[in-house]
């Protein structure tokens, strides 16, 4: 049974549809990450759940209640904004305690709870400061404090880490996960960052063009992307995608290469077009002649622990990840192999995954 349930949710602005009938169920206590490129409608979806945007059509239910027409404050959601949206003229304690002040919670009780929340977030010594006297990470924590103190049924995080520097982002990512484990409150986080999505979510919702492309655990979505979009969007470096056609039963030919066909057991008639995908870490790279497909090393990117190698194969570029030990230099001829069990196939027409 879903705790937050979204049915046929639609949103249009002046007749232009931005969300095209979304259906989504989020279980209680789950950490769901909604991920997608800019303009895919993920923030609109979150703002509609929060009550900051009206619903054009469809239904949003939190617990047993349809919240479509409820005021934001009455939905039981607390939101952490991308730029924190702290009240600049209030101290940290006043910022955190503000929702309680509005709810007319007595002062003593309010102070006690502010101290409790500050303790959870390590903000005890900053309570008398104003937001402008805090670092980005501290502001982020204050924003979370203001959300936590309301004891909401659902936490909404709108790109909460994107204003932080790289180091702080990694730290806050872990802190957010720990906090979720401690509080076990249903959380929805919106991000365009796939690393954030992969590392933080119990489940991922991948969106594109106002539609949900796939819902699943990070491992599922990574291992079996439901569409060419998901395949290309998640993973860094992204999946190699080739235009291909079936040569004869059991093999496909990549367009633009002269090399041998790839063994591939697809139930497709000969000559059908499709998109073939393989993750860079699944491409095997060896000295010339060892594998079936020949190529030339175009560029080597050294990332410390491993190297990303771009190989030219006819007109096609293939990205592969190799370990540090392999000796590779630009311009060197190499051979590649695409293990059949690691290949992904997508319809060239619809982009949907084809079962292999």
């Amino acid at each position, binding site marked *: 049974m879903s705790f937050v349930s979204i049915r046929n949710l639609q949103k249009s602005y002046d007749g232009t549809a931005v969300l095209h009938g979304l259906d989504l169920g989020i279980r209680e206590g789950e950490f769901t990450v909604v991920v997608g490129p800019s303009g895919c409608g993920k923030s609109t979806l979150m703002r509609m759940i929060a009550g900051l945007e009206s619903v054009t059509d469809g239904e949003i239910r939190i617990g047993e209640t349809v919240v479509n027409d409820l005021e934001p404050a009455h939905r039981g959601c607390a*939101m952490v*904004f991308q*730029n924190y*949206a702290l009240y*600049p*003229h209030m101290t940290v304690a006043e910022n955190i305690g503000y929702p309680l002040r509005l709810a007319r919670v007595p002062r003593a009780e309010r102070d006690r709870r502010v101290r409790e929340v500050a303790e959870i977030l390590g903000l005890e010594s900053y309570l008398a400061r104003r937001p402008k006297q805090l670092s980005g990470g501290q502001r982020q924590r204050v924003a979370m404090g203001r959300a936590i103190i309301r004891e909401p049924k659902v936490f909404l995080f709108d790109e909460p880490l994107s204003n932080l520097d790289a180091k702080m982002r990694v730290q806050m990512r872990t802190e957010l996960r720990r906090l979720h484990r401690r509080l076990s409150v249903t959380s929805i986080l919106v991000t365009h960052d796939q690393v954030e999505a992969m590392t933080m979510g119990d489940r991922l919702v991948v969106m594109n063009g106002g539609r949900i492309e796939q819902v699943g655990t990070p491992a599922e979505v990574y291992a079996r992307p439901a569409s060419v979009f998901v395949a290309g969007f998640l993973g860094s470096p992204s999946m190699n995608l080739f235009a291909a056609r079936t040569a004869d039963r059991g093999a496909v030919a990549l367009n633009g290469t002269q090399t041998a066909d790839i063994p591939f057991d697809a139930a497709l008639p000969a000559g059908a077009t499709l998109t073939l995908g393989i993750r860079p870490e699944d491409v095997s790279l060896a000295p010339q002649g060892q594998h079936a497909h020949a190529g030339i090393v175009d560029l080597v990117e050294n990332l410390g622990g491993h190297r990303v190698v771009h190989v030219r194969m006819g007109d096609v570029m293939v990205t592969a990840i190799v370990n540090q030990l392999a000796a590779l230099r630009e311009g060197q001829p190499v051979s590649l192999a695409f293990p059949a069990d690691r290949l992904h196939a997508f319809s060239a027409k619809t982009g949907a995954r084809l079962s292999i």
Partner: protein
Amino acid sequence: MTDTALQAPARPVAFRLRFGTGWQRPLGHGLMILLSLLSVFPIYWMILTSLRPENEILSTRIWPDAATLDNYAYALSAIPMLRMLVNTFVVSAVVTAIQILTGILAGYGFSRWRFRGASLLMGAVALTWLVPLQVVMIPNYLLVARLGMIDTLGALILPHTASAFAILLLVQAMRSFPSEVYEAARMDGANHAHILWHIVVPNLRGTIASLAILVFISTWNEYFWPLLLTRSAQNSVVQIGLQMFITAEGTQWGPLMAASTLASLPILAIYLVLQRQVIASFMKSGLR
């Protein structure tokens, strides 16, 4: 980032006139000194004349030979100067308070609410700025007369309870206030009144202070409307009091300058105390 936007109005932009290097620099400073002298000289001359005895009043010497406070004593006894100063202060303070109040309310409505005809209404408000006093003078006078308010301080305040300038300035300031803060307050359970008075207004203190200074000074200097409205010296403002020294028999320069000095003291004090804010407010309003 959000905070920069919020903190911006606090300090005025520093004047940094660049005159280049070498010989251009002393030339630039010389020009500035000359302009400053030109601006300050009339004030100096007013104070100087106010201190001169009657028989030297039209003297062109740059230094006073003998200073006297006779003109001040005369000015204070000839017209109810203190009463007029108090009246002017009351009118200026009340007009400032009311204009800011109406400006804040209208500014919030225009900046946060979407309603049918909003831009039309906003346009109409902006257009009232272009209507000169002379056009609305007679209808306003008739209105005040029908209300039986001729020769009262209330009549000096009534036509100034809202101003397009205040509304437009505050609409602009509220529009540039980050919308996420409004939304955060809504999610925290604040209603519009609470958002306006507890979130928006405390963060627009700089803008409101600038506006207050501008409105106060312009109301203090108002001459024409009080001239139409007031009959008795007791209910008059200081600008009208000054005019009483200019009579058909001639101008009493000494007392006129003494009264002018007294009338400009409060404004001078505002300039001295709030110099930075005054400059900032003039710059912000584009009046520089």
